């Protein structure tokens, strides 16, 4: 598998800055995913257990690389294993968005007329709403937990998919090859899934990468205001939140390391999104 990835990487990098952005972003994401996946075997201390003779708020040292928190837990171990919640929430929310936003955008805009207008108006209303405010309101009603966070984020981002897909379908719908397919009697479903959908996949990929980055930041935000996962689960958002109370005692390490991890993960997806959209829309590359 590696032998097929490496040539792919080198051709990407040859595409200039955009290629580099994608490669660096992908590396960041892969490293974090792998780190989270193997964390149970590499953590030096148990990240959830409260030690019997805790060293409370110890600064970074050779024993505790990232120091300890107010319960005496090793922050290095918590950082290694704390990516799971963000990854789960973002993956789940992107899946929900794809499952609802893509068919909705395809059918509504292909059908046109009143369906398109009504769905479009509802989507525009959600889109115009402050996303985080809406996500907070939904999460507050649904309660805490990974699935509820993912659902509240998904509701906010479905309109982004809808809008991108709609604008593409509207222009593709008018092309002569679709007219030709109609003329030879192709079914609407065939036209949508075989002739239109493949053409809009690149745009969907760009929206999804941006959605990943946003979902991570929104999940961190929801956690920060107390709508995240229970404290017992190691999670960067949770560590950052509880670290805020320790700011006045000067424990900079309690927020710095989990915060940097959230940035790196969001940055990975942002870089990929940036690179992909530049590759697919090379307007300024003359």
């Amino acid at each position: 598998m590696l032998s097929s990835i490496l040539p792919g990487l080198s051709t990407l990098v040859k595409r200039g800055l955009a290629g580099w952005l994608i490669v660096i972003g992908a590396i960041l994401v892969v490293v974090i995913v792998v780190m989270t996946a193997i964390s149970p075997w590499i953590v030096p201390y148990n990240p959830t257990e409260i030690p019997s003779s805790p060293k409370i708020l110890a600064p970074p040292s050779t024993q505790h690389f990232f120091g300890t928190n107010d319960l005496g837990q090793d922050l290095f171990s918590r950082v290694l294993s704390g990516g799971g919640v963000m990854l789960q929430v973002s993956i789940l929310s992107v899946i929900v968005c794809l499952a609802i936003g893509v068919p909705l955008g395809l059918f509504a805009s292909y059908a046109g007329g009143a369906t398109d207008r009504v769905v479009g108006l509802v989507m525009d209303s959600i889109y115009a709403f402050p996303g985080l405010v809406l996500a907070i309101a939904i999460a507050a009603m649904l309660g805490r937990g990974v699935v509820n966070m993912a659902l509240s984020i998904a509701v906010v981002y479905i309109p982004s998919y809808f809008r991108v897909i709609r604008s593409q379908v509207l222009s593709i719908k008018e092309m002569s090859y679709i007219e030709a397919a109609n003329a030879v009697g192709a079914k609407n479903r065939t036209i949508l899934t075989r002739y239109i959908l493949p053409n809009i996949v690149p745009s969907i990929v760009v929206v999804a990468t941006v959605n990943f980055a946003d979902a991570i930041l929104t999940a961190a935000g929801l956690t920060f205001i107390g709508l995240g996962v229970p404290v017992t689960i190691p999670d960067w958002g949770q560590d950052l939140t509880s670290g805020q109370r320790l700011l006045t005692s000067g424990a900079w390490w309690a927020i710095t390391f989990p915060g940097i991890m959230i940035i790196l993960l969001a940055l990975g997806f942002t870089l990929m999104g940036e690179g992909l959209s530049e590759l697919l829309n090379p307007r300024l590359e003359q």
Partner: protein
Amino acid sequence: MTLRTYVIARVLLTIPMIFILLTMVFLLIRVLPGDPVLLHFQHPTEAQLADMRRQLGLDKPLWVQYFDYLFGLFRGDLGKSMQDYSSIGQQIFSAFPATLELAIFSMVIAAALGIVLGVQASKAYNKPQDHAIRIFGIVTYALPVFFLGMILQLTLGLGLHWFPVGQRFNPMVQIPLGLNVGSFHFSSGLYTIDSLLEGNIYKFTESLRYLFLPSLTLGLVLSGVFVRLTRSNMLETLRLDFVTAARARGLTENKVTYSYALRNAFLPVLTMMGLQFAALLGGAILTETTFSWPGLGRYVVDRINFRDYTAVQGAVIVFGVFVSIVSLAVDLLYAYLDPRIRL
């Protein structure tokens, strides 16, 4: 289309959007799994539940509740708090100016920083300075606003003591009073404006000092969007013939960039300011929570912790309606500035 018909059409479009928004929020709180009254209590008795439902009008059929809710909103009544049955409208009204002030200053910082850096990047296209500014733009996008807030608090606030943290105004000084002429009294609730109206420069600088870190936090996070937009618009504009012509006439490069090219590249930035207002208010919730800023965002978070869902609903409505009005205003301003939009 004349400007007048455009204005009318745009205003008419806003009405169904606000209506959908109100309906959505209603459905969210009342129909989504989870009865707000049931969620409010830890171990309720039947009598408690029935009493609260009656007090809040939640014992009526759903459609009656819906019309009560809509007519209440028309009269400016946002409902009663589940905490103590006090009027939510009053609480939101007193928290709103703090958020508005934070939002305005953050937007100014974001747009100013974004435009300056965006112009610089476009002038240094594909040079190291351009790359550095682009990376700055991308990194700000990946930055959790409350994390940046904590870092700034830790360094510039608690570490260096340059700026105060954790308050909106100096607790040792009386808050700005606004304008008082005889029996006439006016205060906007924005401390910077009120201190100027009062004619007190010390209070003005104090309010700026307290405002600085929260606004910088939110402004920095939002500036990336403006950097990117200004840069790509400038890159396109700088290639146009009228810019070459201006250069050929021997105008200085600064004059060409700022008075000629930027003026053309500015309109999309204006639209973006309208669009970003929604993101700004979302960010304000987190910024206010980080800095204990007593605005609407912190109000929402407080109310969530008290499981006061009617108050959350009221605040969410105010956020939504406010954003719709701002985006309406920006669109109208845009139509006024750029006649092409009305065609």
